[in-house]
């Protein structure tokens, strides 16, 4: 399983999760976990997704999600899971 962490940060508005999920579904990306909080009116979401099924190159997916974020007015970032595992797990 190739896990990627998607983080979404920005001003809370209607349909952020819907739009991100639609993109992921359209690209055969399976969501394994979602957590979300709102800190001082700012929307913070983290998704752990499995990119095994998608035919999309990581760079392309990352760019497209970034553009989607610009469109909705939030910052979307894709990172491979290893950086977090390395830093927070021995």
């Amino acid at each position, binding site marked *: 399983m190739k896990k990627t*962490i998607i*983080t979404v940060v920005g001003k809370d508005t209607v349909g952020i999760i819907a739009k991100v999920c639609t993109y992921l579904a359209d690209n055969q990306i399976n969501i*394994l*976990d979602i*957590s*979300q*909080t709102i800190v001082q009116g700012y929307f*913070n979401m*983290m998704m*752990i997704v499995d990119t095994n099924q998608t035919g999309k190159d*990581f*760079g392309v997916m*990352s760019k497209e999600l970034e553009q989607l974020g610009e469109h909705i007015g939030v910052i979307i*970032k*894709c*990172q*491979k*899971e*290893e*950086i*977090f*595992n*390395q*830093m*927070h797990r021995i």
Partner: protein
Amino acid sequence: MINIFEVAETNEMIEKENLDVRTITLGISLLDCIDADLKRLNEKIYQKIYGAAKDLVATGDYISNEYGIPVVNKRISVTPIALVGGAACRTQEDYVSIAQTLDKAAHEVGVNFIGGYSALVSKGMTAADELLIRSIPKALAVTERVCSSVNVGSTRTGINMDAVKLMGEVVLQTAQATKGEDSLGCAKLVVFCNAPDDNPFMAGAFHGVTEADKVINVGVSGPGVVKTALEKVRGQNFEVLCETIKKTAFKVTRVGQLVAKEASRRMGVPFGIVDLSLAPTPAVGDSVAEILCEIGLEHAGAPGTTAALALLNDNVKKGGVMASSYVGGLSGAFIPVSEDQGMIDAVAAGALTLEKLEAMTCVCSVGLDMIAVPGDTKAATISGIIADEMAIGMVNQKTTAVRLIPVIGKGVGETVEFGGLLGYAPIMPVNGFACDDFIGRGGRIPAPIHSFKN
């Protein structure tokens, strides 16, 4: 599974605290390029570097994109050129032609620095070593990306005082040769004692003869991350302080390890070491001096600075060593002046002098680094400063280095601007009492005794 707080912590480090991988440095051996014909030698060097490093920048950028961590610099280190050029070079100009080849190759593959225009002369100089050293001013003046270093001493061999004397002159000549750019050439020239073979950081990187044909070394950074972590334990005792530094250094180094392994895998080049240094930049919040202030000093240079730096350096190593399978290079806290806003402020406030910096180098990871001094400083005085710093390294079995910039045409109170990562610096006063007779003696200082440690 990873949770949202861990993800947020990592991304906060990257976005707000300047966590980055400072450099992926590809070490390339040029020993197999040696040829008695200068033209052929230059061709072979260019081909070897181009062939080995053509994908380096793209690999660094790809990794940066995948993990969301900036990989700031992609660089190359090569075998000390004094060895590589020994058979072909008869004149200083011959050596300069190799520097130009290195510069051309660096431009072509897109790296911002290439290190290894170097000579290792800790005990004695061959004719080739001396020729290379004398060619350094010209080589650094006619190239943009070439970095040079000379190792003039070690704990095992003592200090080559002939080389120390010569390097005082070479530093001044380099300053003269690049005076149009505020003597910038000297920012690319380091004099070492106990130089490591696997250092990925410039300007002192070279690919030692003990290394494999090619190797990936990675230098991490993260002074801002350590400072932010320490803000949360303000006022607490030394145990808490040291534990916090260790844990933070561990996290920072893990990122370096990941990037190094990934770069090694993608390029098919063995992973060498992670250099777990706290390397500052002129950016606010990316400063080692600010960590010292957070530990409890008004300014770097205040009484207590050496102790604070010693514990910082030691705990960075303790935390980092467990995070990486191989640690090497310089590993510790760098204390350059011009590349660290907190250091610049300390000098401007009158808190930090050259002498205090020298004391700090006894416990930091390298030495007197990026210090601007008046352009009329005498060569013998520069040699004297080098000799002092080399003695500290030799006796304490550590790497020390000197990267002084005598800024031609400028004096104490003026400022010099190097730009980019090299920053800017106020020109610091130098002790003006003479040491000419000491430097003029010639010969070597014998290796120190390795027992009766007091």
